[in-house]
């Protein structure tokens, strides 16, 4: 789904400064284009012109080479997912009915709608059995925003518009949902236009970043290009210096994973001690046959009484999920005062270990 904005201009009141000023932009299939800039610079207005909630004063928008102004707005919107910061769940409908909104408009058969609802609930990490029949008012902010995303994905639209979708959440929930969304996006590969005023979020979520100022496009580049070659002073200030730290948002833990030393909970302590000696980190992980992470073995746990690893191992904390960035991993390490973080995927499957050294190496490589 290729999106083209051509000389797009929006003037709300004649005589006012344009909210969007002669903006030209092309978003490629599968890209996440993040519109970023200070509040009031025209990001929302730009986005709403794509699904015709706002009509442009001038210029054209092409979705898949079709001029949107020639399309029926209802048909257009049914094919574009839409998520906003305030979420706007329908309070009088259950979660399932909320998610089913667009499929119902499209008159899908009941059975298909039900299956789709359950599939989406699982995809956003909510148990369908538990959540299907609840009301939006029973959910936490983070859960509501997951429903907002699920609702936008319901009819599998090729294009998604997301206006500060995680803006109203607390920092921990936000980072968690960002990671989760990155993981989902890896599977569904939508074309996304994503609005935020937070440059860190832009760098983390975007494959392309469009920096806007007073309705105009200042720079359009990949996050990497943006950090290494900011177009002007405005962009430099927006990024706020400290490029190495910013890069932490850019690199995923998956890229620098180390193979962990593992044992099985059934193994004897002697076997575990042998493995421990090989491990420079003095860290051994207990996993079962399917690589589900079961426990953590450290020198101090090996000094405890017991026969099997299962008797002495500790509960593993310090985990991040596989979509996390180096920034997330570092944050976990700093919070706990340890030099490592465990990376787990779906169903708590151990994927590897990230160490402080590995993070430093990655930043140095990247610098070159």
């Amino acid at each position, binding site marked *: 789904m290729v999106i083209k904005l051509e000389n797009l201009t929006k003037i709300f009141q004649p005589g006012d400064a344009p909210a969007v000023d002669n903006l030209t932009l092309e978003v490629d299939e599968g890209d996440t284009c993040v519109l970023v800039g200070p509040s009031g610079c025209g990001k929302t207005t730009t986005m709403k012109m794509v*699904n015709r*909630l706002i009509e442009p004063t001038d210029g054209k928008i092409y979705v898949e080479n079709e001029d949107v102004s020639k399309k029926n*707005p*209802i*048909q*257009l*919107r*049914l*094919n*574009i997912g*839409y998520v*906003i910061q*305030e*979420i*706007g*769940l*329908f*309070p*009088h409908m259950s979660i399932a009915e909320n998610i089913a*909104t*667009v499929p119902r*408009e499209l008159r899908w058969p009941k059975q298909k709608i039900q299956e789709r609802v359950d599939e989406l609930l699982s995809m956003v990490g909510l148990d369908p059995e538990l959540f299907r029949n609840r*009301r939006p*008012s029973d959910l936490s902010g983070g859960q509501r925003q997951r429903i*907002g995303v699920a*609702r*936008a994905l319901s009819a599998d639209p090729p294009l998604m*518009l997301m206006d500060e979708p995680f803006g109203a959440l607390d920092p921990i929930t936000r980072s968690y949902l960002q990671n989760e969304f990155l993981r989902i996006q890896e599977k569904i590969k939508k074309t996304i236009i994503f609005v935020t005023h937070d440059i860190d979020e832009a760098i983390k979520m975007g494959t392309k970043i469009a920096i806007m100022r007073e309705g105009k496009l200042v720079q359009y580049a990949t996050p990497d290009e943006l950090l290494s070659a900011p177009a002007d002073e405005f962009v430099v200030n927006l990024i706020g210096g400290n490029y190495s730290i910013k890069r932490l948002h850019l690199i995923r833990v998956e890229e620098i994973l180390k193979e962990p030393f593992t044992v099985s909970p059934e193994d004897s302590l002697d076997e575990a001690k042998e493995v421990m000696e090989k491990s420079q980190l003095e860290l051994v992980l207990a996993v079962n046959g399917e690589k589900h992470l079961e426990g953590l073995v450290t020198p101090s746990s090996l000094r405890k009484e017991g026969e099997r690893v299962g008797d002495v191992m500790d509960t593993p904390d310090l985990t991040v999920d596989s979509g996390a960035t180096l920034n997330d991993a570092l944050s976990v390490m700093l919070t706990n005062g340890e030099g490592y973080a465990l990376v787990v995927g779906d169903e708590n499957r151990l994927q590897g270990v990230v160490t402080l050294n590995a993070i430093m190496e990655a930043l140095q490589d990247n610098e070159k």
Partner: protein
Amino acid sequence: MELLYSMGHYFMLAASSNPQEGEPWFFEPFFAYLVRRWDRILVMTLEHFELILVATAIAIAIGVTVGVIISYYEPIAYPVINVTQVLMTIPSIAMIAMLIPLFGIGFNNGVAALVLYMLLPLVRNTYTGIREIEPAVLESAKGMGMSELRVLTKIKLPLALPVIMAGIRVAVVLGVGIGAIAAYIGAGGLGSLIFNGIERVNYPMIWTGAIFISIIAIVLDLILGWGEKRLYRY
């Protein structure tokens, strides 16, 4: 329970200010009248209900429609609500008299007058019910591709329903009382008992009319209030 208790008080109050010493004047003649004329009272009660029912149905149809329309045309919203407010201040007997050229004398005139009085709570509550919906809810409905008609029927009206119900409740209770006056021009109902009672100086008749109307209002208020609470409040 609290209500029953205070109703008891109400009767006691009425019974204690006896003007003619020694003579039974309230309970005995009142119950004697009830027993003697129960058939007539029943018919009038049914007539009263008929008047309220017809008027409420028409008033809801008009009031909700007007409320919806003015929610789309903001500039006329307050003028329209003000007009319905002015209608409500007009004394009922004057309203009925002014409606004679259009509706003549009788049931239709009574219905028309009641409808006009019921408009304010219905129009205003429909309007505010729709206006109070969170803008984000409407934006996301529109953004997902619901047509305006679907947004109205699937989102706006269901969300405004509790507020509209509150308006219906106010309108009905109002109508029960004003329905008494409509009896004067032959619209039927329990008001006839009061007017005839005044003419014939028949106090049991007056009390019957007043108390039955009051009971109908209280019962309908309780039923509608219960229904309103059962509607999901978000």
